[in-house]
């Protein structure tokens, strides 16, 4: 294991720009780390070593000639295998897509290519971003670096695993009901779901059109903002892409939060559902720290969590079914059972129920906007529970219901998961910080102030270098 592989993007970028670190050296260090660790943690579906080496060499040559493109130039990253990369399969971790080949890059991938980033590979996920960890798929499920027998969260499971295990400093996932923030929460790293329309979804296999978001996972808040800035912005090819110039999220990152007004949605975890006491204790301590840092904290109330969850569930099921209907009719046996069950639910939703969900969404979005008129940001829990065993199907199923992430997909608002400490068992705890639409700058500012003061992002999992006998092993 080389130290260079654990450098934050911000620091590596400075060294690369100053030609004190070669992108080739950094890439080789990460490829070596992947070779040792991935047989244990299964974050990757495919390692694109040849592409990585070529892109790293190109970056090195260009920077040596004096052309530095920006903070992602020469920085390695990996993609949830739901993003198209020209010439590579986009498997969606499904047997149904094994023979697929993408003909063009997804817009987010193209932007990272233009920024000079280095693609390390494609990452494991829940089948079609919708199922769960299972043995019924062509590739193994990603494991939690904090405990190999536990679920790393999903659906962007490989993204969380790769970042937490130090196999990639940056990954891109997608989030329809929490699929970036859940692995970030379970793996003790930083994951943001940006505003709906802030990042193009062109070339990303959809799960539910009106809930899908692309989001970065990294080890630090600053790194997350760097990656977000590299991929955000209007894309004419995506009809839902917002026509606006994005605010600079790095400029105000270190401004602190003295005088910032923060609302706490405590009823989500203190009334609406019962949370693990360790999660609650950690978020209370985090809120106290925000106050110590100068924030003006006050409680706020939104509609009960059940209304947000029902709204998101109906929209998710109906839109996802529309995408997969033909395959569910003609080759249902090719889906993993957990995926089949979840996708098929959409076949039985009445049209009027879907319309009512969209009507409810109008009311909930207005409520969210009104609440943010009085405060600059909100905080609430991410997961109610600690990461569960990866072979406990019932517990995995509960992770979809027992979470506070879906409200921000329904509202389309930016929401970031940040670590709030560790349980007695040594497992990551987390909260969310959310904000106004297109105000990622404030969300990052609060997250950076908190994480910088709390220091939880510094902790690394005790990694295993050889394969033990994990749960689900045959």
């Amino acid at each position: 294991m080389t130290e260079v592989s654990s450098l934050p993007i911000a620091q590596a970028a400075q060294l690369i720009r100053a030609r004190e670190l070669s992108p080739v050296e950094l890439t080789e260090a990460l490829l070596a780390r992947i070779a040792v660790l991935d047989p244990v943690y299964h974050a990757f579906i495919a390692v694109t070593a040849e592409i990585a080496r070529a892109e790293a060499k190109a970056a090195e040559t260009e920077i040596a000639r004096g052309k530095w493109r920006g903070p992602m130039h020469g920085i390695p990253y990996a993609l949830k295998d739901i993003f198209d990369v020209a010439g590579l399969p986009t498997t969606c971790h499904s047997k149904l897509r094994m023979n697929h080949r993408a003909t063009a890059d997804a817009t987010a991938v193209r932007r990272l290519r233009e920024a000079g980033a280095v693609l390390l590979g494609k990452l494991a996920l829940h089948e079609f971003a919708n199922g769960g960890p299972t043995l019924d798929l062509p590739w193994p499920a990603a494991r939690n670096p904090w405990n190999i027998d536990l679920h790393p969260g999903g659906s962007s499971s490989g993204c969380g695993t790769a970042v937490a295990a130090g196999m990639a400093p940056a990954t891109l996932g997608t989030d329809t009901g929490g699929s970036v923030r859940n692995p970030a929460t379970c793996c003790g790293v930083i994951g943001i779901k940006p505003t709906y329309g802030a990042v193009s979804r062109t070339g990303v296999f959809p799960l539910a059109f009106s809930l899908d978001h692309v989001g970065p996972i990294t080890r630090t808040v600053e790194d997350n903002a760097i990656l977000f800035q590299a991929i955000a912005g209007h894309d004419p090819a995506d009809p839902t892409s917002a026509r606006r110039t994005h605010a600079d999220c790095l400029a105000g990152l270190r401004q602190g939060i003295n005088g910032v007004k923060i609302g706490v949605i405590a009823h989500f975890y203190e009334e609406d559902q019962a949370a693990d006491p360790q999660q609650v204790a950690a978020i209370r301590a985090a809120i106290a720290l925000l106050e110590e840092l100068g924030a003006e904290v006050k409680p706020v109330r939104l509609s009960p969590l059940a209304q947000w969850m029902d709204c998101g569930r109906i929209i998710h099921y109906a839109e996802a079914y529309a995408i997969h209907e033909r395959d569910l009719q003609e080759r249902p046996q090719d889906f993993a059972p957990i995926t089949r069950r979840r996708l098929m639910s959409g076949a039985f939703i009445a049209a009027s129920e879907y319309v009512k969900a969209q009507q409810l969404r109008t009311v909930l979005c207005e409520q969210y906007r009104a609440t943010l008129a009085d405060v600059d940001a909100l905080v609430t829990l991410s997961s109610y529970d600690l990461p569960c065993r990866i072979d406990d199907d019932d517990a995995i199923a509960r992770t979809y219901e027992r979470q506070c992430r879906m409200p921000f997909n329904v509202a389309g608002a930016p929401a970031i998961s940040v670590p709030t400490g560790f349980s007695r068992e040594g497992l990551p705890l987390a909260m969310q910080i959310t904000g106004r639409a297109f105000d990622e700058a404030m969300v990052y500012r609060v997250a950076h102030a908190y994480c910088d003061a709390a220091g939880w992002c510094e902790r690394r999992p005790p990694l295993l270098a050889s394969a033990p006998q994990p749960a689900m092993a045959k």
Partner: protein
Amino acid sequence: MNSTALAATVRLNYHGGMAASQGVRMSEDAKGADTEFVRVLCEMRGLGRALTLFPDIVTTAFARGRRPIGSFPETFAATTEPASRFAADPESVE
């Protein structure tokens, strides 16, 4: 590894003062679903093969899919405009 014991559940009445769902609340219990109704619905949706191969999964999916929205905010009305073309910030879309 399982999580530690959960805090006691706080009882809430979400439904007080809220418009009740117009749907019929059905049990999550797949055994409660009417077998013939599920079969007919599956045939109509082209899912006959799936039902034959995976009857338990399809019946469970039916129960989950038919679960209606449980309650609505007071400001919800049957005439509320749906968010059919969703935008997080409508003012940002030309």
